[in-house]
């Protein structure tokens, strides 16, 4: 039994796209990752039944280039079905080589790779490749073809008629967030971010079960990158592909990965674990160094804010009477959070000033900063809000931006301690029960709030 019922499991608010659009999320399973976990768990049991545990299985694979360079050294990985596996590591550690061995753009020297249980060398190489979408840095679009033709390339090669391929391409443009008006343009007329979206659409065109992505977002600016990452998660939530994603950016790995494989120079696997586990228990010094500073705080991204104890004591409406204000402004409450009539935050008022009698002046308020969304944002977001808040209190809002309460830095610190304790407890229980540590195993889920 997996620890699904824990209130503050590793709920992965770290990985959040824009609002999920599928019905699957109703009832609090509103992080893309959650739906994914559910599916991964199903996939797991299905595979156990079929006797296949992973869609892509890399078995003790070595790649020696003709010049003698050993790019990958006896690498073994089980890449789970229907989820995102990230290969991360310093430059030259063999990530691209590993990825390209999967679609045989690079032939392995030793070992074997199984796709759904069958050796990848058993089918014709071009058939294999067409069953795997491939996305690379700078997109690698065909500059001499229009966007719609670029996307329709593989369907056309598979013999779809022009009309069907085009319809499919237009559907995909919409799915990846491209305006239909761009269809007839050429790649040079698109921004880098748009080109990258076309690259993703092109890889998805023939609906391949596997998507191989080699630093797809590293050539765009950080803001566009964030958007693209979020969109990838959204698309993944809808399509449930098996994605192998290469990056040298550990933050990207943690944000996108259901499983993260950290590789070290020389093509060796340093650690293969879910991101939360990576942050809490790096296998060795190399992984720890690679993760960089702030591991503890970053790990908070995996704790939901749903367990936080909020208080509404300091919250008053802007049109509150003097008596109401006086009642709120006790000794424990140096600041009052003022909301508008709809309950949306306006700002903080000094309790002493407010009690003075002139009423609440919206223009005199201290900024409330960016609020966090209760239950959906992580403890890291909550802590961040509290630290940045002029009053040291974080403002919690619901999905519509209405205040549901506030939390002090101390409250948040307490919640963090509780969450750690609970996580540790469940890990111990799991160890005691001898539960297998598959990707689904850590997928505890937040309960609906």
């Amino acid at each position, binding site marked *: 039994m997996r620890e699904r019922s824990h209130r503050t499991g590793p709920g992965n608010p770290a990985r959040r796209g824009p609002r999920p659009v599928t019905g699957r999320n109703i009832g609090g399973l509103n992080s893309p990752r959650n739906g994914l976990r559910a599916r991964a768990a199903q996939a797991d049991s299905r595979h156990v039944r079929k006797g296949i545990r992973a869609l892509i299985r890399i078995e003790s694979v070595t790649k020696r280039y003709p010049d003698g360079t050993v790019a990958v050294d006896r690498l073994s990985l089980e890449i789970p079905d229907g989820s995102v596996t990230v290969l991360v590591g310093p430059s030259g550690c063999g990530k691209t080589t590993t990825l390209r061995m999967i*679609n045989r*753009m690079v032939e392995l020297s030793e070992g074997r790779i199984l796709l759904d249980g069958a050796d990848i060398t058993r089918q014709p*190489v*071009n*058939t*294999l*490749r*067409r069953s*795997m979408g*491939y996305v*690379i*840095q*700078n*997109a*690698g*679009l*065909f*500059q*001499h*073809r*229009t966007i719609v033709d670029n996307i329709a*390339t*593989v369907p056309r*090669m598979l013999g779809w008629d022009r009309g069907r391929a085009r319809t499919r391409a237009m559907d995909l443009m919409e799915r990846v967030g491209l305006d239909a008006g761009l269809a007839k343009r*050429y*790649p*040079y007329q698109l921004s880098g971010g748009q080109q990258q979206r076309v*690259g993703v659409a*092109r890889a998805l065109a023939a609906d391949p079960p596997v998507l*191989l992505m080699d630093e797809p977002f590293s050539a765009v600016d950080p803001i566009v990158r964030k958007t693209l990452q979020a969109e990838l998660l959204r698309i993944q939530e809808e399509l449930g592909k098996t994605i192998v994603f290469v990056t040298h950016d550990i933050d990207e790995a943690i944000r996108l990965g259901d499983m993260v494989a950290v590789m070290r120079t020389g093509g060796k696997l340093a650690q293969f674990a879910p991101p939360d586990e990576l942050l809490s228990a790096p296998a060795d010094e190399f992984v720890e160094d690679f993760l960089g500073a702030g591991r503890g705080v970053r790990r908070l991204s995996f704790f939901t804010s749903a367990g936080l104890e909020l208080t509404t004591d300091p919250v008053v409406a802007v049109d509150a009477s003097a008596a109401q204000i006086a009642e709120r402004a006790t000794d424990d409450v140096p600041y009052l959070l003022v909301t508008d009539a709809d309950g949306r935050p306006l700002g903080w008022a000094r309790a002493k000033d407010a009690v003075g009698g002139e009423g609440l002046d919206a223009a005199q308020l201290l900024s409330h900063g960016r609020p966090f969304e209760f239950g959906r944002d992580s403890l890291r977001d909550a802590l961040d809000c509290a630290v940045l808040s002029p009053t040291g209190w974080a403002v919690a809002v619901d999905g519509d931006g209405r205040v549901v309460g506030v939390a002090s830095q101390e409250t948040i610190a307490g919640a963090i301690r509780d969450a750690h304790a609970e996580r540790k407890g469940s890990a111990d229980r799991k160890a005691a029960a001898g539960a297998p540590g598959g990707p689904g195993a850590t997928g505890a889920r937040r309960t609906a709030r």
Partner: protein
Amino acid sequence: MSGGAGFFDIPSDLQHTYLGLIGEHLKEALIPVAGGLALSLPIAQLCVRFRWLYPPVLWVTTVLYAIPSIAFFVFLIDYTGATETTVMIPLTVYSLVVLVPAIVDGVRSVPQETLAAAEAMGFTSMQRYLRVELPIAVPAIFAGLRVATVSSISLVSVGSLIGNEGALGNLLSDAHVFHRSNLAVTSVVTTAVLAIVIDALLIGIRMLLTPWLPRGSRSARRASVDAVTGPAPEEARPLEEAAR
């Protein structure tokens, strides 16, 4: 300056009208370029596939280019006689020195990511060459074609060395023989106009074939191709050649 004969009164020994000469000239200039292109495409493909082949191929085309046409004529005349074929064979050979590197460099300029994407999508190497590499090399190939064509138009005139096969170039020898300098003017001006018109035509075709090129970068790309294929602006090379 004898007689009152005008610019377009072609001496009868040439057995052609003015327009006939133009037709003849174009035929002798363009067939070799077309033939050169047909030869260059597979040669370039081999040079791209087997990198080691490129330097020796380049060396051979350069050496062939260095052989004066008169030497070709002396050799060929035993086999093909004093015919236009004898003129067109060396012109074909000369065009290789421009076309092979233009195609090779054009194909090699296709970005690595594009090639990787094509490979990953399951293109066979033939599909990749025909559907990706060649189309993307079109601007470079046309840059080469323009140089080769203009140079060929200017070179046809050397055909007059073996009698009547120089087309508009024969007007030059006739100008000398008949002391009619206006014929020389006709020859030079007509050749120049032909070169300009054909060049413009090639530019037009290239633009039709490459709607995907960023506007404004067309000339930039051309300049970069010239940089690769060596200092061969189309004005300069024909002049060198005319000296042969």
